[in-house]
C-alpha cells in the first residue's frame, strides 16, 4: 500500500507562484480561492541575517484529519493511500470542514456550492503522472511520492530532516513536509501556525451538549419502555378487568 506525501524544499523554492496558477488552471479554481498557495512574507531580520520566506502550502492530507471528523455526511474521507478527498456528491456545503482545517486548505466553490481542495491530483497520480503543481514547479521545490516506500525521494528527504508544520497545540499528522537548511521553516511556523480546529457554535452545541443529552433521552426512553414491557410480560396482560 502506498501513502502519498509531499516535501516542499524551501531551499529551492523561489516563490514564483507557478504551482498556484497551474492548480487553478487544472481545476478551474475560481478567483480568489485556491487549492494551494504561496504566501510571501516580508523580509525580516538584522543584516546580514535577513530572511525572505514564503509559505508554500496545500492540503496536508492529515492522518488524523479534523476535516474528516467534522464532515457530517462523510463527503470528506481519507482514502487508503492517505489522500483526503471530497466526494462532491455527498457534500452539502456546510463548511464545517473549512472551520476544522488547521491549514486553511478548503473553500466552497461559489458556483458548485460544494467544498473543494487539493486532492494531490489523484487522477493524475493514478495514471502515473505527477500532480500539476509538481509538474510545473520551476525550482523543483515540490517533491511528491510514497512515504511507505523507503527508497522514494520523499522518504529520503523526510529522513534527511524534512518536517511537517505542527505545533505543540496542533498535530493532526500532516503529510506535507518542509525541507529547510537556512532556518526559514521556523519563520513560516511562527507566521502560519496550524490553527486549532474550530467548531462553530451550532456544531459545538450539538457535540458538547445536545448529543449527550439526546443519547440520554433516547436511551432512557428506550430502556424505560423496555422495562415497562418486561414488567408487562412478567405480570401477564390484564386486559379490561375491574
Amino acid at each position, binding site marked *: 500500500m502506498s501513502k502519498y506525501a509531499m516535501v516542499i524544499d524551501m*531551499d*529551492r523554492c*523561489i*516563490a*514564483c*507562484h*507557478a504551482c*498556484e*496558477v*497551474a492548480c*487553478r*488552471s*487544472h*481545476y*478551474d479554481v475560481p*478567483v*480568489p*480561492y485556491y487549492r494551494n498557495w504561496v*504566501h*510571501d*512574507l*516580508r*523580509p*525580516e*531580520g*538584522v*543584516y*546580514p541575517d*535577513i*530572511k*525572505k520566506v514564503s509559505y508554500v502550502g496545500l492540503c496536508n492530507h492529515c492522518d488524523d484529519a479534523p476535516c474528516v471528523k467534522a464532515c457530517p455526511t462523510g463527503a470528506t474521507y481519507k482514502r487508503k493511500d492517505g489522500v483526503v*478527498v471530497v*466526494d*462532491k*456528491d*455527498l457534500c452539502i*456545503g456546510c*463548511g464545517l470542514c*473549512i472551520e476544522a*482545517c488547521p491549514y*486553511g486548505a478548503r*473553500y*466552497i466553490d*461559489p458556483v458548485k*456550492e460544494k467544498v473543494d481542495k487539493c486532492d494531490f*491530483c*489523484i*487522477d*493524475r497520480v493514478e*495514471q502515473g*503522472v505527477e500532480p*500539476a503543481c509538481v*509538474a*510545473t514547479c*520551476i*525550482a*523543483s*521545490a515540490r517533491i511528491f511520492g510514497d512515504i511507505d516506500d523507503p527508497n522514494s525521494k520523499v522518504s529520503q528527504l523526510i529522513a534527511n530532516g524534512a518536517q511537517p508544520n505542527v505545533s505543540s497545540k496542533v498535530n493532526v499528522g500532516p503529510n506535507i513536509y518542509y525541507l529547510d537548511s537556512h532556518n526559514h521553516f521556523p519563520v513560516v511556523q511562527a*507566521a502560519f501556525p496550524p490553527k486549532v480546529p474550530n467548531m*462553530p457554535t451550532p456544531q459545538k452545541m450539538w457535540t458538547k451538549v445536545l448529543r449527550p443529552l439526546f443519547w440520554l433521552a433516547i436511551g432512557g426512553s428506550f430502556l424505560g419502555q423496555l422495562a415497562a414491557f418486561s414488567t408487562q410480560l412478567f405480570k401477564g396482560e390484564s386486559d379490561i378487568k375491574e
Partner: protein
Amino acid sequence: MEKKISRRSFLKISGTVGTGAAVGLSTSTSKTKAAVRTEPKRIERIPSVCEQCFWRCGIIATVEDGKLVNIEGNPLHPNNRGKICARGNAGVALVYEKDRLKGPMIRVGERGSGKWREVSWNEALDYTAEKLLAVTKKYGVEANGLFAHGASGYFATDLYSFLGSPNSAAPSFAQCKGSRDVGYELTYGENMGSPERLDLANAKVITLIGSALGENIHTGQIIDFTDGLANGAKVIAVDPRFSTAASKAKWWLPIKPGTDTALVLAWINEIINKKGYDETFVRNSTTGFSELTDHVKEFTPEWAEKITEIPANVIRETAKAMMDAKPAVLVHPGRHVAWYGNDVQRARAVAILSAILGIWGQKGGYFLKSEFPASYNALDIPAAPIPKRQRVDGAGYRFPLASTEEGLTQELVKATLSQKPYPIKSWMVFGQNIFNSIPAKRDTRKAIDNLDFYVVVDVRPTEPTWYADVILPEDTYLERYDTLMTVTGWYKQYVSLRQPVIKRVHNTKPGWWIAKELGKRLGLSAYYPYNDYEDVIKYQLKDSGISFTKLKRDGVITFPAKPFLEPGESYQFKTSDKKVHLYSKELKDLGFDPIPVYEPVNDPGKGYFRLVYGLMPVHSHGKTESNPWLNTLISEPHLWINEIIGKSMGLKNDEEVIVENQDGIRSDKIKILMTPGMRHDAVFLPHGFGGNDRGLLDYTKRNISDNNLISKYTVDPISGGTGLRVNFVRLIKDEQPLSPTVEVSMTGVSAKKISGVKQEEDQNKTFNIQPKKKASAIKEGC
C-alpha cells in the same frame, strides 16, 4: 443529482505531446458512482511557444472541443524543460480575458476622448494606409515612426523597412539589455544573447549584480539556478534590496545604488593583487591586462568601501570566493541594465571580471556560441530600400554603438516632441506600452499631440491605447503564427514554432497578417508573396533538413551544441584581434574611457530616496496586470522601504503613502512594505502596475506605475541606453512630506539617533497575500 464528470482531469494526464486529436472517455473515480459514460470530447494537445514574457518557453496547450483549458510546459523545449511559470500557466486566462481588444476600431471623438466606432478590418486597414500615405506624401516616408516589441513586432519592423522609414525602435535595447550587449561586444566581440549562455547549474559561485533572477522567472535560468544552489553554489547578490536571489545568497551586498562599477573594479583589483586570475587565459586570450592592472591599482577594497558602503573585508571575502571557485564562477551579465546612463562601462567591468576569471567556455561559467546546423531559405522578395534620411534617434552616429536594428525609443520620442531633425508625424505602436516602458511619460504623452496619425496594434488595451486614432487588435500568442524562433549556442540549440492552438476568439488578426495587409495597401505587395504564414515557414524550412511536420507536432527541434572549450583549446573571439579586450581601443578611439572608471552618483538629499524598481515574479512588464489569475496573486505593488527609516517616519506596514519625485510628479496612494531588506537611501517599487487606464480596463486605475515617477533619465553616450535609476522620491502622507529622523548604515547594522524610533512589535508581518475571504464568510450572498 447526476454527478458532473470532470473531463479536464482526464485530459490533463494524457501524457504525450501531439497535435493529433486524442479522444478520451472520462471516467469517474468518485467513491459514490461507478464510471459514467458521457459523449466523447475532442481533446487536442498542441505545442507552441509562450509569450507571457520574452523568454519564449515551449508550451503544450490542451484544447477541449476548441476551448483552451490548460497550458503546460513542453518537456522537449530547452528553455523550460516541461516547466512553466505562473504567467505561462495563466495564458488560458489571457485568451478569455474580458478586457481584450476585440475588434478593429476607429476613433470618432477627440483624441483621448475614448470614443471609437467598431469597423471592419478592411475599413480599419484602408483608413490606416490612407493616413500613413498622407503623412508620407506631406513629410516624407521617414516621418512614420514605429515602436514595436515582441515576436510579432518583427513583422511591423519589416513593414517599416520595406516602406523606407528608418525610424523604428524597440524598448528591448535602450530600456533593457542594450548596454550590456554593447559592453560585452566591446569586450568579447559577441554578446550573451537571449537566453544568456550561462552555466548556472554547474557554477560554484554565482555573482549577481542587480539581477532580477528569481523575480523575472526566466524559466531555464531558474531551473539552472536552483539546481546550482542544490549543487552547493554560493551566491553573491549585489542589490540594494533583499531580492529573491539575495534570499538564496551566502553574501548579500546591500550596495549603495549606482556604485556597482566601483565594487567590480575593487574585485578586479583584489583578484589581480592576489594573483587570483586565470593566468593562462589572460595571457593567451586577452589584450590590455597590464593597462588593466595599472588602472585598477588605486581601486582597492578600502577605496570601494567608502563608495559602495560594502565593508572592505566583505569585498575581499567575496573576491576570494570567486578566485577559489574559478573557472566555475558565473558572473551574471544582467539583462535589464538601463540604470544610470553609464551602463556600457559597468557591463564592461563585469565582462572584464568574468574574463580574468577565465570562465569563457568553462563548466560553471559562460557557454560558447555554437554554429547552428541548419540554414533557412530566404523569401524571394526585393531588398528593402535604403532610407534617404538618417534615423532621428541617432543610433549609429550620435550614439555610435547603439543598435540600428532595435533603435532608441526615447530618442524617437524626443524627435517627435521637438520635430527635429525632421518631422515625425505618425506613430505605430505595436505590442508595447510606451507609457510604461519609455521613461518621461509626460514627454511621450505630449509627443502624441504632435502626430497626425497614431495607430496601436495590441492584444489588450494599455494606457497609450486610449489616445489611438485606430486600434488594430492582434491575436494572442495562442491564436497566431509568428516567425520561427531559433536559438543558436547555449547548452542546446533549437528551433521552435509558435502556432495557433485555438481558433481566434474575437475579431482579431495575427501580426503577420496585419503587416501584410497594410503593406499591400501601402503599395508593398512585392514584399508579401504569400497568403498564409504557415506557407512561409514551410518554405523557409524546405531545404534545411528540418521537418515542418515534426516541428508542428513537437513544437521544438533541438540540436546539440558545443558549450565548453576542450582542455587547452583557445577560442577565436570575434574581436578585431580575436582576443578579449580588457582595454578597449575602440572606445578610446570614440573618445570614451578604454577601461571602465567609476562615475560618482549623486546623493538623494534629505528626505529623498533613490527610486529603484524591478519585477514581481507573477507579472511581466505591464502585460499581465489585468490577467485575473495573476492579479489575484499580486494586485498592486508595495513600496519597499527600510524598516528603521520607515518607522522613524511614523509609518506602518501596508499604510498608504503618496510618492513624489524630484520633479514634483506624484503617484496615487501606494502601500508600503517596511523591511530590513531594503537600503536606507533607496525605495523599491515593483514595475508593471497601474497607470491611468481610463476606462479601457476593469482593474486598478490608480497611478502607481514606477515609470510615472521616472520623469528624469540619463542616456548612455556609448549605447544610447537610458539610465532610469536617477530619480529621487519622497513620501507624502496627509499632504506632509515625511523625513526620516534616524541615520542607518546597512552593513553597520544599527541606527543612530535611535531615540525617535518606535520599537513596537509589528503584528502584521505578511504582505501581498491575496485578499482571502474568511472561510466562514465564503458563501455569503448566495
